[in-house]
Structure formats: C-alpha cells, structure tokens
C-alpha cells in the first residue's frame, strides 16, 4: 500500500487561536473562553509559554470551576446541555470569578461551538462586571489564519477600550503588527524601543505585544503607527487611522529582520516623523560590523556558509526580509519559500518578484520537505519536524514547541535580532563549518 506522509501543515493554528492570543497579549488583561474545556488546556499552556507572568504561586488555587489547574484563560466548560439551552449563567459566574483578579480588561471569546448558541455576552458582562472594559469576539475566523484572528481580537479590544482622541505628540509611535506568537516578541519590542529612543522617538504602545491597558489609551497620541508584520497590522491600522490622527509607516520588504531591513524600517519610521534616523543607523552599522568580524572568526579559513540552502515557511512579512537577508548577507540560496497561504498581498507579490529577479522563481510556494534544505526557518512544529527528519538545522520563528523561558531577554527584530539570527544560524549549521 502507498502510505502518504502526513504534512504537519494539517496542524496549523487558526483564527480562533489567534483571537485567544490577542486577548492574552494585554499585559494586565484576562481572557475568558466561553466554550468547552477541550478548547482550553492547549491555549492556556500556550499563553503561559509565550507570555509568562508571575501569577502562579499555587496551581491548586486555580481549579474547578473555570481554571482546571491553569491560571490563564478560564473557561465556562460548556457541555451538551449548554449547547442546547445556553450557558449565560456559567458565563456570569466566570466573569465574576475572573474579576476577582482585577484585570484591566476582560476579553470574552466564544469557542466555535459556543458561537452557535448565541449567549448574550454583553448582558452577562453588564450583570457581572458592569464597570469593566470588556471585549467580545462572538465568532473567530475559523480555519482562517492565526493573524486574521489576532487582528479581530485586537480590534475588539480597541473597540472596548475606545481610547479618547488626543492631541498628537511629536516623535511618538505605536508599534503595530507584532504578536505574542512571534519568537522573542518581548525582546523585539524592547529592541525597537531602544533603537527608536536613539532617535529620540518614543514608542507609546506595542499593540498586541504585551502593552498594558494604560498604553492603549496613549495610542491616539501616537504620531505614527509603525508596522512590523503587515499580516498582523493591516486591519488594525485601518481601524486606528479611521479614528485617530497618526499615520502608518513601515518598510515595504516587511518586518525589521536582519540588519538591512532594520535600517530601512528605521528610515521609514523616522521619515514619517520627519526625524533624523542617523543615531539608530549608526548603532545598526556598529552591530553589523561587530557581527561581521565574529562571522569571519566562526567560519574561519576553510569553510563557509556560502552556497548552503535554506527554506522559509512563514508569513510574507517574515519570509521576505529573511530570504533577502540570507541570500544577500549570508550568501545562502533559497530552495523553498512558503507563505502560509498568503500569496496575493502586495508584500507576497513583491517577494515572488524578488525570487524571480534572483533566478529562483521555482522555489515560490514549494514545500520545504520537497527541497531538503540545509536550514529551515518556520514555526516551532515545522522546525521540530525538520530536525527530526534530518534537516541540517532549523530556527523557530513562531510558537516555539518547547516552553523555553527567556531568562536572558532575546530579540529577533532589530540589530540585536540580526545578531541573534546569526548566532543561531552558526550554531544550527556548525556541522558545515568543521570541514
């Protein structure tokens, strides 16, 4: 019998997971999952993994009902009866229990099944927590991308908080389009804040990336919404610019990943604010020179990474700058580029054109398994599979599969992110340098 190998792609998270993580991205917020416990455990563990918070002194304090031993994402534990008769009372009790932890905002997200029973969430909130801001996601974009659900969740939060229009503050930005699902997101925020601060630009809020509610209320003061990952920012950007005075800015090759893309991103943001980017550019150049010397030392005189191959499976905002950086900076050749099914956005089109320009049009949307790359850059599950299947090396870009805590803060974005990528690249491919 022919037994086809099953692709790990069957296990991609969808918009439901995205909406839950969006709610969890607010530092002082709480998410209630209105749904069965089967939807809870994985997301609760994922939240603890990607955004550790110091709120677990005793897991036995977080038991039934609602928590089931995990402190994040309490759940209304719907059962068969609830799907027929509704579960508003459970929701009221869950809201009351959650309010005891004093969240600054509650985000209530219907599970796919709960969305069908149509409980009146607004009324439940009015009864249990009339004074608390509450965002509601009635129906997540099922089987759609994580990014789509993430944006829906964030927009619900923005609608619930409804920040008041304020006078624009010069030299201020809000970071847009980073999620807690992205690798080392917290370090990335810090790194970009640092680079912007070198130009005397202040980041007022990192939307969807760890900011507390207070920082969301500062959003209307931002002169610029600095886009990182377009897939996680487009709809949120529309929402913001329709209501407030800030303007969108970002680099047309995607996120600030790698030195060149970071420099261009800084220039774009500084340009939008009419600010001199020179101090940040110098910092990036200094780091680039430092890393360059170390690459030379690591590769030595008898081996080189040049000519090795790589594959990327990621959103275009990551795939494009990574591919360009590995090709131009590291001298590696793309053999497979997949973009999570996103093929029609302007960024995806530019990436496809760029691949054509460098003579690699055949790698567009080619599965990495078919290409046998030396290095795969993809989400945690894919990377784990690549390591298992004998791929030379793999780097997690999103949702790492192991709960590794970052004791020392790390970044994938900015100039520090460039250094992190080089370090991991050299470690993953060190076998090739011992020739």
């Amino acid at each position, binding site marked *: 019998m022919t037994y086809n190998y099953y692709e*790990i792609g069957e296990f991609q998270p*969808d918009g439901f997971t995205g909406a839950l993580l969006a709610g969890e991205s607010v530092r002082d917020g709480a998410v209630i999952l209105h749904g069965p416990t089967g939807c809870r455990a994985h997301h609760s563990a994922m939240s603890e993994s990607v955004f550790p918070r110091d709120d677990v002194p005793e897991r036995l304090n977080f038991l039934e009902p609602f928590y089931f031993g995990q402190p994040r994402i309490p759940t209304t534990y719907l059962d068969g009866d609830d799907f027929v008769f509704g579960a508003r009372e459970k929701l009221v009790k869950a809201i009351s229990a959650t309010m005891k932890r004093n969240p600054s905002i509650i985000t209530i997200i219907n599970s796919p099944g709960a969305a*069908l029973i*149509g409980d009146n969430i607004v009324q439940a909130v009015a009864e249990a927590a009339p004074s608390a801001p509450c965002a509601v996601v009635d129906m997540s974009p099922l089987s759609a991308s994580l990014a789509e659900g993430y944006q829906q969740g964030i927009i619900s939060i923005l609608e619930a908080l409804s920040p008041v229009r304020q006078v624009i503050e010069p030299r201020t930005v809000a970071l847009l389009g980073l999620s807690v699902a992205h690798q080392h997101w917290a370090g990335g925020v810090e790194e970009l804040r640092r680079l912007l601060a070198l130009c005397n630009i202040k980041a007022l809020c990192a939307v969807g990336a760890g900011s507390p509610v207070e920082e969301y209320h500062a959003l209307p003061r931002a002169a610029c919404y600095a886009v990182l990952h377009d897939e996680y920012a487009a709809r949120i950007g529309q929402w913001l610019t329709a209501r407030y005075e800030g303007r969108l800015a970002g680099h047309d090759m995607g996120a600030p990943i790698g030195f060149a893309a970071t420099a261009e991103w800084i220039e774009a943001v500084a340009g939008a604010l009419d600010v001199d980017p020179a101090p940040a550019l110098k910092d990036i150049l200094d780091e680039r020179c430092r890393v360059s010397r170390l690459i030379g030392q690591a590769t030595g005189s008898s081996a080189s990474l040049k000519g090795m191959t790589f594959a990327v499976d990621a959103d275009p905002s990551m795939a494009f700058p990574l591919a360009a950086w590995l090709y131009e900076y590291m001298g590696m050749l793309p053999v497979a580029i997949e973009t999570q099914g996103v093929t029609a956005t302007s960024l995806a089109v530019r990436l496809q054109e760029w691949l054509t320009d460098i003579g690699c049009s055949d790698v567009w949307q080619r599965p990495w398994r078919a290409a046998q790359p030396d290095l795969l850059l993809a989400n945690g599950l894919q990377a*784990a599979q690549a390591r298992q299947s004998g791929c030379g090396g793999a780097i997690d870009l999103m949702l790492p599969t192991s709960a590794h805590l970052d004791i020392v803060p790390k970044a994938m974005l900015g100039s520090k992110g460039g250094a992190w990528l080089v370090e991991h690249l050299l470690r993953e491919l060190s076998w090739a340098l011992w020739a």
Partner: protein
Amino acid sequence: MNKTSHSEKAISRKQIAIYGKGGIGKSTISANLSAAMAIAGARVLQIGCDPKQDSTRLLLEGRRVRTVLDYLRATSPADRSLEPIVHIGFAGVACIEAGGPEPGVGCAGRGILSALDLLESLGIGSCRYDVALYDVLGDVVCGGFAVPLREQYADVIYIVTSGEFMSLYAANNILRGVLNFEEKGPRMGGLILNSRELAHENERVQRFADAVHLPIVASFPRSEEIAAAEQLGQTVVQSFPKGVMAGRFVRLAGDLLRFVSPLPAQPLSPDGLESVVLNGAIHHAISSPFVAPSLMQAGKSLLNGPANSPPARLRQYHSKSVKGHEVLHGCAFNGAVHTLTQIMNVVTLAHGPRSCAYISGHGMVSAARRANKRFGSPLGPVPPLVSSEMDEGVVIFGGNDSLEKGIVKAVNKNPEAVFIVTTCAAGIIGDNMQAAVDGAIRSMSPVDTSYVPSSPCDGGSMLSVADRIISIATDGDINGDYMQGIIDAMITVGGRFIDRTVKPDPDTVNIVGEKNLATNTETNYISVHKMLEALGLRVNCRFIRNCTLEQIANFLKGRLNLLASADLCGRTCRNYLADNFGAEFLSAAFPVGFKGTKEWLTELAGVFGKEAEAEEIIKQANLRYENALAPLRPSLKGKRLFIVTQSYQIDWVLDLALDLDMEIMKVGILQSSWDDEFVSKYEGRFPLVLSYTRARRDEEICSLAPDLTLTNVLWRGQPDNLRVDAISMVPDAGFESGVAVAQRWHRLMQLPPKEGWRHDI
C-alpha cells in the same frame, strides 16, 4: 462593557423589529408598514430575518432576490459590497433578505447573526436610513433569532399575534426573549393584532395584553384587499392606496415613527399564560407546550444519525465525569483522536474547524517531544490526522460539503480505514455524516472506491471503501469528556474490527489501555516487554497504541490481557473487552516498584506455567533492590512522610516507604477527574483522608511538620524547613522504578530543605 457607541453601530436612526409566530402575517404587516413609511417620506430599510426569504416579496412585486447568506457563501471577502444584496422596492424601500440554510441542516439562527454582521461590516449604517424594520421569524428558538433584539439593532419591538393560543404562546416566548435583552432599558412597543376572526379573539388578546401590560397598537381584521394585493405581489398600500386597510397601515406607520416611550417586557409564567388567556377553557387541549428546547436534539436524532457510532447499548461504559454528570475535563473528540491516531495506516478525519485538529495534533506532537527529550523515545511519524477545515460559512450552511471533501482527501491518502471524529461545531449544526460518506464515495472514481487492495485484517476479503469509513459522533464534548472519547474510540474500533472467530495463541498477551499522552508510556512498555520476553511471552496487540488493524482484528489471539493502568479509564476498557469478547485479564495493572512487580510477575507466570522463570527473575531483582536500598536506609529510616495526592493508586509509594523504614504520617487524597475508586492494601494502617483539600494541606503541613511531603503539584510558597517532592501521576513501571525514587529522596535529605531562589519570591 464594550464601549462602542450605539449610534456608531446602528443601521438607521429608528430601528423596529416585528416578531411573531410563523404564518401569523408578520411579513405582510412589515411590508405594508415599510411601504406606508416610505410614502410618508421616510428612507426605509426592511430586513427579512427568516430562512424562508419572503419578507420583502410584497415590496418587490413578488420577486425573489439574492439573500445575504447566499452572497456571503459565494463571494470572497474582498469582493463583497452592499449593492448585490440591497434591492430597491416599492416607494424606494431598500429590501434585504438574510436567508438561511435548507430546513434540517445548519443553524439558521447563527445565519441571522452572520448576515447582520456582514451588513454592518459593509457599512449599511452609513446609508443613513430613517428607519430599519426587521421582520423576524416566529419564536426566539435560539440565540441567533434573538440577534435583532440586541442593543445595536432594534430599539423598539412589536409582536404580531392572533387570538390563537399558540400565537399568544409564541408572543409570550418572545417577551421572555426580549427580557433577556433589556439591560439598557425597556424595548417593547406593543402588540399588533392580526385577526383570524375567531370567537372571542379580541377579548383573549386583550386579556393577554392587559396581563403583560402592553397596548394593542393596531388591529387588522381579515381583509379581501390584502388577499387581492398579495395576488398581485404587492402591499395594499401600493395596490389600494385609498382603501380601508391602507389607511390603517398609514396610521400605524405614523404611530410607530413617532413612538418614543418603550415599555418593559413582562412575560407570563406558563401556568399564568394558560389561566389568564384561556381562562381554563381548553386547558387540557394543549399538551405540554415546552418543546422548544428539545427541537435541536430531536432534529439531530432524526436527521443526523452517525454512520457507525457506538451502538447506544454500549454506552454503559462511561467516564467518571459523564457517569457522575460532573464538569467535563477535555472533550471526547480529543480523546478519540488521540486514540485513533495510534492505529497505523489509517487516517483520522477531524470534522470541524482547523483549530480542533490543531489542538489535537499539537498535543500529540508535544507529548512525543517530551518523551523524546526525557527518555529518548522515538518521535514517530506525524499523526495521521486531517481536518475538514470548517469555516464560519460551513457553520451556517452545514458542513456536509467540507466533510465530503475531507473524506475524499483522507481516502486519497490510501489508508486501510478512515475514522471520522466530530467536533462540537459539527455536532451542533448536525451534519449528516452518512450522507457525506455517500456523497464522497459517489464523487470518487469506481476504481478508487471498489475495494481497498491491501487490508490484511480482512482475511482476504475485499471490503469496500464505504465499509472502511467509520464515524464516531463524539460531537466535541457534547457526548462526553476526554476519557469518554478514549472509551468510545476503543469500543468503536473493537466492535468494528476484532474478529470473534480468532482463537488464542499460547504464550501470547495483549496490552490494554496505555496512556497515549504520557511521557513514559514507551519506556514502561519496554520494561514490561523485557519481563514478558524473559518468561517467553509474546505481545500480540497493544490496544490501542502503535498497532495495526491486523493486530486489532487478531486481538483474540492474545491468551491473556495486561491492563496498563487500573484507573477508571483502564477498568472501563477492561470491562468492555471482557463483557463483549470474553477477554481474560491479569488482576493487577502494570506494576510499579519491587513489591508490586513481584506480585504481578508471580501471577502472570502462574497463568502460563512459567513459575520457575519468574522466580529466578524475582530473585535477581530482589538482590538488586536490597543492594540499592541498603545505603539509602540510614538517611531515610524513621523519616516522617506526608502524602497529598490526586493519584488513586499509591501502594507502590507506601511499599517503598515501608521498605525504607520510613514513617507514614498521613495520606490525603485530593479529588480527581480521572478516577473514583481509591483502593489500598494498607487501608486502616495509616491516617487516610479521602476528599482532602488544599486548604487542609496548608493547615496540616505545618502542624505535622513532616520530613518529606509528597505531592503531584508543587507550589512556590512551601513552608521553610520542610521538604516537598513531586510524584508522577503515571509512575514508571517495573522493579527498578521505586529504587530511582528512593535515591531521589535520599538526595533530598542531603540538601537544604528550601532552595535559595525560593527565599527571593
């Protein structure tokens, strides 16, 4: 609260909902009111919220129009606009039909919600209508049909009723629905009497109106004018503008446009409704009217019988939560998927949103990775799981199309069988799995579907693909929790594939009920397997773990069955196999520690006449055990042990402690969702408290001051100078496992009770 303002989301300046029992004349009245308001100069939008799609027919000269939900299904998000779904009718009234699924499939209520969401997202609010009129299907049968009651939609609600009891019953139900949506203030406008010319009809409706404290804002008698206008596909306002009926509608339209003081909904109790409205006259003529809640269930049972679900008679095998009607832990879908994906060369199709397959698949991969990291267990192939990728549209219109595609996708992977497992979303919309299986098979070529060429469990017979597509209606957690899913999967697979004609082989055993997500499952199997090998015994089938359909078919070759875990899940599987296949089991489950393993091995050897081999194995193990424990005793002897655990099988810990001459101070058993039967051979020898609590632990740990506390869940703020250690819920099997634990306790005694970092908290 969501602070988005009402005005920002409102579709028009004034929003009116017309509710009433199906067939009572809502659409006729709504259309005539819209027409009358438009003639009066208002910009009017009428939205039909009824799957039968005829609300605006009289405004559109009888024309049927494209509905919002049909448009939503057929059009990609980027291409959507209002023009194709807003149809201009008489006097410029803008007409929209929400539409809905075919009767018997999908969730029409959910459809209403999606239709109104789409209108909102397409900017219907910016069209600046003066009035929006929602014509909503009869009873508020589920949350979806109550959507127009939500605050951003109707700000005043009218109920159309006749004097018939069921019409008033529906009106009362609608009032109950409205009551649930009055958090921002009263919403009722009144009743509209559409007379059937029944005896005492007006009095009956008036009694009801008085009882619920609402006015009858208009009465419409039977009218030839209305019938004649309907024949023309028009409203009377259009056909007979000077007629009596048109005049009544014009007056009512004016009243409704001017109305500013809504009243609260004050529905009657069922008894009150009967006594007030009927005055007892036909009390016995109405059988129990409260059938609405079971509608969905009844529909499901009639229409959606799964193709091959476990027969009802087998459902006596229940998980703890299902049996006790307790809070459900996890969902049956997940438990079934984690079991079925252990069968090699089959595909499991998760019918539901992609997130469900993701959660299940990620759980399996993560467990395998943990086992690989900890024990070097092989990662194995990616679990053979595919998703039907149900989206919001499928949720509204039913998921049979996506299920059919999923079945084709699964069958095209050429497996020996396909298992369909349903999620709660699939369960609620009630997809007809058998129809989807039939449809999928019809869509495949005869060559693909005539037979499965390599199915070793058939004994050479050729089974069709249809016979090998097996569905399990877990319906997410509608049919139970995680453990129930494991049980249902075992019952389905066993019932479908175990060949009752197979005779047992000598010296052959089966393993039953291994924990598929535990990190030490493979190492425990290896430990047991080594002992079996030493006795000259062979493993026939691991039910259900890394096995083939052929092994399952030949399950009865196993002379004896070895239960991996004696918890409720394991016991239930054992009972099923014993009851239905006469399977014989060893009395004890996989052994942990020296004493347990000695007893287990002795019993096992007795069954197969291998006593001598067992005696030799035990003798050598005993020597190793004593040699290992001897250096540990000095530091552990007399040490006082306090155990707080959710595990219901802890004799191995007690054996070990006693062998080390430790003192067992107290055992507290916390509640567990996984078991309901604590059994210990040591019961009565130590203070034992069932239903123990965390709070009691906090009290007693200080007063008892044990040298070592054992628990399943460590906590940060443990008391100073007291040692706490974790014990596993799924302990390692075999002679050596206790030794490893004792060595750890010994090391703990050498270390300071509390690590330095704990002082920094």
